[in-house]
């Protein structure tokens, strides 16, 4: 038994954290609000140079061949920096699927070269995150039953929509799509595995977002003075922040365990992924509320950076299954509810 990242995993994570600290500051996230495509392309080129695009692709197909336990910590870093890119969808969900289907080799090659971003249309395509800047859209048929049966050309299949988080470049899938659907040749198991990767990866991003929101809030309440003292010296404020840390510290291990279950093909992987997402969504939502409250009015502006992270939480906590929906999956796994 050993429940911690290995030295290699930590080194990889720290490398990505360092790169994103330099290349994806809040100013870049803010720039993505006005020109999401330009911000995404420049950042994606730098991440691709590190091999991130092919992180989860087998080495035989030109990727790094990393396991979920290696990649999930990187997605937490992507969340921490509020990366305005479909890293999860492109590198963790789509890339391994494209690598399974020989007919998708040209797309895979473009993806590995950093020339292809992928969005996922999950639930009737009311909103497709990053659909407005992606090149391809994977369309799912029934979430829990697995993902990604069809690939669409994003340009002709999507119409941009306005998200609360402009950096998400959300689009609406046109119905019926004006282009032909091309099914990927995948087994049921591969589709289900892709769904689990999406769920766990999104949970990791939410934990990362929560960590940034909490760290920024802890720093702010140390500096902000009212009544002649730092507001962080008041117990009411301390207890809010303590609750935020509690929520994150008990969600993060569940996310890492779900990654392990993916790698090992554990029978409990569906339950573990669902539990991770439920905890991560709730933790991130909770921390976002705490962050807003403990900052006070300054956080209720768009001039201050906090909203970039908080809105990402509000935009993404219900994708890949809301907390309630995921608890329903756990209820099924525990025999409390029929599927």
């Amino acid at each position, binding site marked *: *038994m*050993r*429940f*911690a*990242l*290995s030295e290699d*995993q930590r080194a990889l994570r720290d490398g990505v954290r360092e790169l994103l600290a330099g290349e994806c500051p809040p100013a870049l996230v803010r720039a993505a609000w006005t020109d999401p495509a330009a911000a995404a392309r420049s950042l994606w080129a730098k991440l691709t140079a590190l091999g991130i695009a092919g992180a989860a692709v087998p080495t035989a197909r030109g990727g790094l061949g990393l396991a979920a*336990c290696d990649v999930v910590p990187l997605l937490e870093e992507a969340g921490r920096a509020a990366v305005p890119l479909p890293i999860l969808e492109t590198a963790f969900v789509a890339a391994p699927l494209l690598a399974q289907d020989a007919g998708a080799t040209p797309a895979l090659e473009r993806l590995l070269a950093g020339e292809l971003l992928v969005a996922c249309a999950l639930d009737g395509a009311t909103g497709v995150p990053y659909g407005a800047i992606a090149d391809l859209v994977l369309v799912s048929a029934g979430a829990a039953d697995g993902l990604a049966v069809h690939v669409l050309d994003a340009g002709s299949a999507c119409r941009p929509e306005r998200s609360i988080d402009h950096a998400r470049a959300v689009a609406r899938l046109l119905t019926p799509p004006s282009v032909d659907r091309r099914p990927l040749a995948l087994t049921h198991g591969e589709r289900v595995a892709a769904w689990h990767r999406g769920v766990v990866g999104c949970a990791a991003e939410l934990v990362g977002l929560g960590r940034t929101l*909490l760290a920024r809030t*802890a720093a702010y*309440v*140390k500096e902000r003075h009212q009544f002649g*003292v*730092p507001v*962080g*010296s*008041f*117990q009411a*404020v*301390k*207890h809010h*922040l*303590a*609750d935020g*840390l*509690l929520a994150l*510290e*008990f*969600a993060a*291990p*569940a996310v*890492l*365990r779900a990654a*392990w279950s993916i790698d*090992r093909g554990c029978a409990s992987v569906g339950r573990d992924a669902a*539990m991770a997402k*439920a*905890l991560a969504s709730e933790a991130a939502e909770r921390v976002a509320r705490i962050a807003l409250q403990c900052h006070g009015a300054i956080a209720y502006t768009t001039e201050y950076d906090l909203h970039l992270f908080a809105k990402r939480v509000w935009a993404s906590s219900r994708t890949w299954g809301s907390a*309630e929906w995921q*608890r*329903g999956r*756990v*209820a099924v796994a*525990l*025999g*409390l*509810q029929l599927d």
Partner: protein
Amino acid sequence: MDLTYTETEQAFRTQARKWLQANVPRGLRSGDTAEGFAQHVEWEKRLFDARWAVVSWPERYGGRDASLWEWLIFEEEYYRAGAPPRVTQNGIFLLAPTVFEYGTPQQQDAILPRMAAAEDLWCQGWSEPGAGSDLAATASRAVRDPAGGWRLTGQKTWTTRGAFCTHLFGLFRTDPASERHRGLTYFLVALDADGVTVRGFERLDGDEGFAEVFLEDVHVADDAILGGVGEGWRVAMSTTGSERGLTLRSPGRFMSAAERLIELAQARGSDVTPLLRDRIVQAWIDAEAYQLFTLGQVTKIADGGSPGAESSLNKVFWSELDIRLHATALDLLGAGAELDGPWMRGFLFALAGPIYAGTNEIQRNIIAERLLGLPRT
């Protein structure tokens, strides 16, 4: 990362499970009554005879030299088997880690084997009428006896099972000029010593589980001090770390309660509303989350780290989880919940969790100040 147990660890689990299945007693009275306490002590002696009382201790003290992982496994199996609460816990889980850390070899040899064998039964003398959350307000005092040793005077209260135990560990002020956490010393006292009066009283659940302990000029020898004169605060912090964290409340206890909750829900069938089902699932998820958190924590300890202020995260989480687990079960039981049954008993016990071992308000202060760096008040 490796979330599997080795073959040796699995064999350890099988061995523990078999023994517990064959030996766990049923129908004991509450360990917080005189009669029930005696029954529980009998059980503790059987555990000791089979070397299951203190698995992580060295063999020479009655343990098995088990790793922390094996200890976790034993705890899981213990609660899964429905075995009784450990009335020796304040000794084996709270005092013992401190004796291992601060005791002299002579103290360890004198104290630990008798504690493991349930010959000496230890209670914790922390709280005083004027010192609850504010432990540094301890007013009980100790003065040097010119003829040797020390003389203790003061009052301890809310002492769990104090009326049934044989020994007490507690803090006493040895420097009368000192204030707060300076000038305190950690003493070990036999409750049959001259000058000790113990008065039991009822806890919330109606059992005589609490006691007041009055000390009037009680003589103890020099070797009744653990860790040095004036070092009491530092030594006590080692005990509170154990109390808040892993050793007192291992995940097995909550996982077992969560499993029982699921069984209760399954037995109720269609009576379970969607809202209640969601609360059951949340409670189960949280018990599992506590288990995963502790696996990470034990990995850190195995790597030579120390949980430190992180044990406050454990404390808040398990104590509030315990209440949610039991409150959810009571709602499942509906109107029948008021009967004096195991879930209601468990609920009343769980309500103490956010109070003892430092209230959760104090724990949240610690989390904010030590883990997030917020300014001290």
